[in-house]
């Protein structure tokens, strides 16, 4: 396994960006990682199908926390459609890290949670209204 604990990961872990609850939000989704029981909650505001602001609260390992922190920065300004297409490759690009099979769930938890949040939002409000 390559070194997971590179400087940028540790930086996002120790000083996470956008780590806060959002009282007024359009999207809120919570999920847990079945591997370890870690928890994440993602909040977002959205306008005309584009995420305008994202934040998170989480309990988890350095990889999942850093991933959430970096994700909230990346998705701001992206459309729902673009976000829903994001997979392992996009997430490892964001992390600039080769994440092995064992830890990929940690890296993917925040994006998967955001994606289900967007889906739920669209189901409720209609994809066009988003």
């Amino acid at each position, binding site marked *: 396994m390559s070194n997971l*604990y590179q400087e940028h990961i540790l930086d996002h872990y120790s000083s996470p960006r956008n780590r806060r609850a959002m009282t007024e939000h359009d999207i809120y989704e919570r999920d847990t990682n079945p591997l370890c029981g870690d928890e994440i909650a993602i909040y977002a505001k959205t306008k005309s199908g584009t995420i305008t602001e994202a934040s998170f609260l989480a*309990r988890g*390992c350095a*990889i999942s926390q850093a991933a959430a922190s970096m994700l909230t920065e990346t998705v701001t300004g992206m459309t729902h459609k673009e976000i829903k297409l994001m997979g392992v490759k996009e997430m490892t690009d964001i992390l600039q890290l080769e994440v092995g099979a064992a*830890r990929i769930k940690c890296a993917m938890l925040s994006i998967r949670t955001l994606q289900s949040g967007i889906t739920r939002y669209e189901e409720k409000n209609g994809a066009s209204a988003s």
Partner: protein
Amino acid sequence: MDAITLAINTESIRKDFPILRRTINGKQLVYLDSAATSQKPRQVIDAIKSHYENSNANVHRGVHTLSQEATETYEAAHEKCAQFINAGFDEIIFTKNATESINLVAYSLSHSLKKGDEILSTEMEHHSNLVPWQQIALAKGAKIKFAKATEEGLDLEDVKKKITKKTRIVAVTHASNVLGTINPVKEIGELAHSKGAVMLVDGAQSVPHMPVDVKEIGCDFMAFSAHKMLGPDGLGILFGKSELLKNMPPFLFGGDMIREVKLDTTRFNSLPWKFEAGTPNVAGAAGFSAAIDYLASVGMDNIREHEKQLTAYCMKRLGSETDVKIYGPRKRTGLVSFNLGKIHAHDTAALLDQEGIEVRAGHHCAMPLAEKLGITASVRASFYLYNKKQEIDLLASALEKARSVFK
């Protein structure tokens, strides 16, 4: 190094385990995850290979020589296992794993479960001794209760209070896979029996590591897995008292478990085969026999003593650091669950892996217990007969490196 005389000759034992020679990330493998699954000695691997190379055939189905040899191998494993835990031959059922053994009992007993009946389990169970009971309780309108557990162990007063006239089943683990706690299953069994309940003991973490005698314990059922005791994957064991098994309906239906089939009815086979439907894991049974032989030749008392010494050393070594939080009681099986400062267990385990040290991190399939301890995850180092004191020293120095990454 201070002198502790280990109860067994680890160096000669290690030579029997081919995997211990490999390296991980350029470092000598230090395998500290035997509570998840044990490594396998050459003798077990050879027995499986030899079965496929020399005697492979289906069992109980042919008059030809190979089938007879396979049947003998398969039945001999039942006999050996029965002797190992002091049970009768017809009281040993082979399944896929401990989980399936528990499901077998849960499913079979659920037929006679009525609304308002009670099941008692505990807060320290592995999911495999919790979810089956929870689900049959939901399906049958029965009530499931959980005896309180603390880091020090089970609250016996609470067990007493919660076993009532309505209790039909008591399901308790013999040894916790997270805390290492050894529960007084004999006493709990007596309480259960005094109210007319049956008692299942989850032996997954005890049978591999200490002498276990089901008659002495007096339990009605005990479940465990071959893979945690030097044997192969895919073979679980259920001990059940024959007078109970006789009257219980089968779990799975099909070939092998029948005596006579008509289009509208079936007469079931005698014990233990009534509970073993379909082609079983014969090669697994061959390997399991070799595993029992291996354990017996070292001696379960010696293995227990060896693990006690390693565990005491590990607790002393890690416990002397102020940033290491160890969970569980002093007296325990061969495992130590801990957290290092505020570092997440996954991160600690991943950093240990970079040093070749394999430990488990997570909730260890006991989410309610983790919640009770107020943690989402912990790191668990677990030991077996092939582990040595120097490996604990390596663990301690690797933790030092983990600290420096997260300083």
